[in-house]
Every structure is written in structure tokens, then in C-alpha cells.
């Protein structure tokens, strides 16, 4: 089985966010970047488990500039066989999907996995767009994935419950929590990653349908009103009269 896993490069979850250029660009200075958790913990690790059990290969693909290579190497250290970096700024979901589709189209992947969304731009779009560009079925929010005899069985969250679906390969799946447990790369993996193939692919020209014109930090809460533990009914009163929440 030939598996492709899309990975994106995002600020670590604890990052304090700031912006530059009159609040039109994310300030990456001093920020620790990691593989998007949904791509890494769930999509990539499940892909590796399937490969380990059934044979085949796992390729990771990333759209981004050369400075994202440490993130790609981490994916190789966790166990991917090889990597592809398409040399383009990933600043529009549709453009990213077009880049990946252009590369993947004639490579015969049986399974294409992405995370359900990135923790940076929270788009939740690339997987579905990729499926449309490649004319493939798509399942989002997948929490379980198995493959037998060229048929994938996918459990995923739907409105009001979960659905178990079956689909002949190939297809595109967006992974949610539950699909696998996080793996920490070991020393051997880290050493091996240095020499695994990382193919650089030039960008194609793509459409840019959206752009960000301004960033603002979310307004935080400034003061918490404390209620004495002995009078919780006071809280209910405030929630009713002041916050109008109940």
C-alpha cells in the first residue's frame, strides 16, 4: 500500500502569537515550529502502523519554504520512508491543495491522509479540496482506520454520533483524535532521517482565492469576579442578572 500523508508546519501549541508588518503577517521570529498535531499524532502514525502491518510505503508531503525542513525531518524520524517538499508559500488552502494534487495525481497513492485541521489557520479544507481535485471520495473527522483487501473501514464523527463507512481505495481521509497514539522518534529514527530522501519539487502556478488583510489578537478577559465557596447561589444569581447566560 502506497500512503501519502500531508503535513503542515505550525507554531508549537504553547506559542505566544504576535504579528508584524502592521499586523498583516504572523511573526515567526523565535517561534518553535512543529508538525501539526493532527497530521503527526493521528494521520502519520496510523499510516506507519498500516505499513508496518501490511507492507508498502509512507511518503510525507509538505508545501512550504526551505525553513520548514526540520519539521519534515521530524516526520522522517518518526518513520516515514521519504518526503516531498513543494517549494511554495502555503498561504491559501486552495493553492496548497492544487500543489499537492499536481504532484500526487499520477503517483498511484492508495491512501491520502491529512489532519482534520491545522492548529495555525484552523482551515479544515485541504483534505476535501484535494479529494475534489483528484476526484476521490473523502471522509473527514476520522477516528479509526483499517484497511483489508483494498477496502478501507473508517469510523468518523458525524452530527449526533459516529458512522462506520467502507470505501474501496483510493480515497482521502482527514484524521481526528483517536486514530493512533503519538510516537516519539528514537535515536535510530533521528539518525536515519538525515539520509532519507527529501525531494524538492518546484511549485506550479496556482490560484490565490483568499488572502489575510489583518490579524488581531483575541481580547483576553481582564478581571475575574470571585464568589465565596460558601455561597454558590450567588454565582447563579450573577449568571442570571449580570452575565445573562442563564
Amino acid at each position, binding site marked *: 500500500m502506497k500512503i501519502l500523508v500531508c503535513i503542515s508546519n505550525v507554531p508549537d501549541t504553547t506559542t505566544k502569537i504576535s504579528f508584524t508588518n502592521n499586523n498583516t503577517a504572523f511573526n515567526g521570529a523565535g517561534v518553535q515550529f512543529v508538525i501539526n498535531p493532527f497530521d503527526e499524532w493521528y494521520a502519520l502514525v496510523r499510516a506507519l502502523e498500516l505499513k508496518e502491518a501490511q507492507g508498502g510505503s509512507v511518503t510525507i508531503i509538505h508545501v512550504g519554504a526551505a525553513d520548514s525542513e526540520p519539521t519534515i525531518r521530524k516526520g522522517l524520524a518518526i518513520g516515514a520512508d521519504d518526503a516531498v517538499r513543494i517549494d511554495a508559500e502555503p498561504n491559501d488552502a486552495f493553492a496548497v491543495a492544487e500543489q499537492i494534487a499536481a504532484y500526487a495525481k499520477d503517483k498511484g497513492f492508495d491512501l491520502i491522509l491529512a489532519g482534520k485541521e491545522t492548529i495555525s489557520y484552523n482551515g479544515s479544507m485541504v483534505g476535501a479540496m484535494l479529494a*475534489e481535485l483528484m476526484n476521490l471520495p473523502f471522509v473527514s473527522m476520522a477516528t479509526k482506520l483499517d484497511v483489508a483487501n483494498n477496502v478501507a473501514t473508517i469510523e468518523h464523527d*458525524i452530527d449526533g*454520533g459516529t458512522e462506520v463507512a467502507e470505501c474501496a481505495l483510493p480515497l482521502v481521509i482527514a484524521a481526528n483524535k483517536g486514530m493512533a497514539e503519538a510516537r516519539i522518534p528514537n535515536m535510530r529514527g533521528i539518525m536515519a532521517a538525515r539520509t532519507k530522501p527529501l525531494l524538492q519539487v518546484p511549485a506550479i502556478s496556482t490560484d490565490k482565492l483568499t488572502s489575510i488583510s489583518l490579524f488581531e489578537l483575541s481580547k483576553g478577559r481582564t478581571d475575574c*469576579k*470571585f464568589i465565596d465557596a460558601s455561597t*454558590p447561589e450567588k454565582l447563579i444569581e450573577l449568571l442570571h442578572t449580570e452575565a445573562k447566560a442563564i
Partner: protein
Amino acid sequence: MSVLIYTEVSKGKVKKSSLEAVNYGSRIAAQLNTTATAVIVGDVDLSDLGKAGAKKVLKLKNDKLARLDSQYLSSAIEQAANAEGATVIIFAHDFTGKEVAPRLATKLKAGIVAGAVDNPVISGDSFTVKKNVFSGKAVATYSLHSAKKIISLLPNSFPVELKDGSAEAVDFAVNLDGINSPLKVKEVKKDTSELNLTDAELVVSAGRGMKGPENWGMIEDLAKSLGAATACSRPVADMDWRPHHEHVGQTGIAIRPDLYIAIGISGAIQHLAGVNGSKTIVVINSDKEAPFFKSADYGIIGDAFEIVPKLTEAVKKFKANQ
């Protein structure tokens, strides 16, 4: 020209997030001097769609739409959009919205903003919409450059408004002959909880401070007294104290209820990322230094095991006097 809104049925009626989307779409239609048309799969009472602002409802008809497969549904909505000459298409940013809206955007080469939190600002050729980014740590203003535009609206961004009004409902036969999705449903497991977490206006959430799954009875009691959904922090779901679909945060689901009550949750940055859009936050924690108090509107310092049952009693008393 018109504004098209994809709406959906859940538990025998039009979903709340769909009504929010119709309100939203009809406001945009008014700005563009046009009208709002809803599309829906399923036969239920559609009068709320008219009350929410739709002038017309297209009931999408094709046997293949029995499962809301993204390949079929995106094609069906595309056909409706073309028939209506829709330039703006609205979804709720829910499970179907996430599968289908980006697919439709690709078909139409439409710029899309997934998870919008505010009305778009339209002036001349400029069309901008705000959405949360960096898991709620910031808000970005997106400009859409394409002729057709798609917005999926984050649930609970606006309250539902129903007014006098009615929509003309007509059947709309869609042609899906050229598409054959290999996706088949094997089984659907219904969620036993009555309230859907992303739709819920009130949420009671608890963390590792509850010590073990056997102590969740009081959390459920409080939630029940309020009519709230229950949620939890990540370690609680990881340890299987609670089902994983209750896990909120950066790596769980993001919610923005009117009221979020956090009990025995420390308030780690990754947890806050999923709940900081809540309108009012209450924190109950025995540690006065717990970081969550810095992100709360109301706080009670003390032992949850003593406070929560008292709170439930107070809610019951309050409800009885309403």
C-alpha cells in the same frame, strides 16, 4: 443573483446551526439587494427556514443523497447554486460543512472562509470576513478575491432570530448520474447524550481535578439541572474517564457556548484554545493560582466535591422560581 444557504435536518427538524446560517445569509442577501434561498435534503417542517429569512427553499431530490456523501452533495449544491445564480453560498461550519464546503469551493473556484465568526464587510469589490486563527488566540480578516464566495459560519456565533415570514418550498431534482461514490455506510452509532456539544449554549466541563470517572455523577447532575452539555479536558478523555468526543481544546473540538463552567481544570493554553470563545466562563478550582482564573469571568476557589452539589441545588431552586 442570490445567496444560497445549505441547511440540514437533525433529529426530525432543521438544525439550529442551519437557522443561524439562514439568518446570516439573509443579512448578506439584504446587503446585496437580493434574496436568500435555502437548500435542504429531507422532508420535515420547513417553516422555520422562512422565519429565519429564506424566501425560497429548494428540496434537493435524488436517491443518492440518502447518505450526505461529499461527492454527491457538493454536486447537488453546485446545481442549485447555478440554477439560482448564487454568488455567495453559506454553510454551517459543522461536520457536513467541513466535508462539503471546501469541495464545492474547489468546483466553483470560489474563495472560502471556513469558520467565520462575524458578518462579512462588503463595499464595492471588497469582501472581507473574520475568522478565528491560532485556535482562538487571534482573529484574521480574510479578503475573498473570487467572483463566487463561500462562507461557513462557526456555530453559536449569533443567536437564532425567527420573525414573521415564509418561504416557498419547491422540489429540485438533481442529476448525479455521472458520479458513483464507492463510500458505503456500514453502521451508524447514535450519540446517547441528548445535547450536541458544538450546538450547546451551556456547557459543564470537568478535568483531572475530579479524580476519577466514578465522580462524574455530580457533573452530570449539574449539567442536567442547567440543561447543559458535558465536556472534558484532554487527559480525562485520554484516560477514558469520558468519551473522546467530549474532549475540548486545541486538539479536541472548539466550542463557543454562552456559558462554559470549568470544574477541576487547570486552564492550560491548549485547553483555553478550544473554549476561549465562550461568552461567559466560570472556573471552579481548589488552587487559587490555577491559570484558568486569569481567563475567567467568574471564579470560585474551593473543593469541587463540595461546591458542585450545592451549585446544582442552587440551580434547581432558581429554575423552580422562574
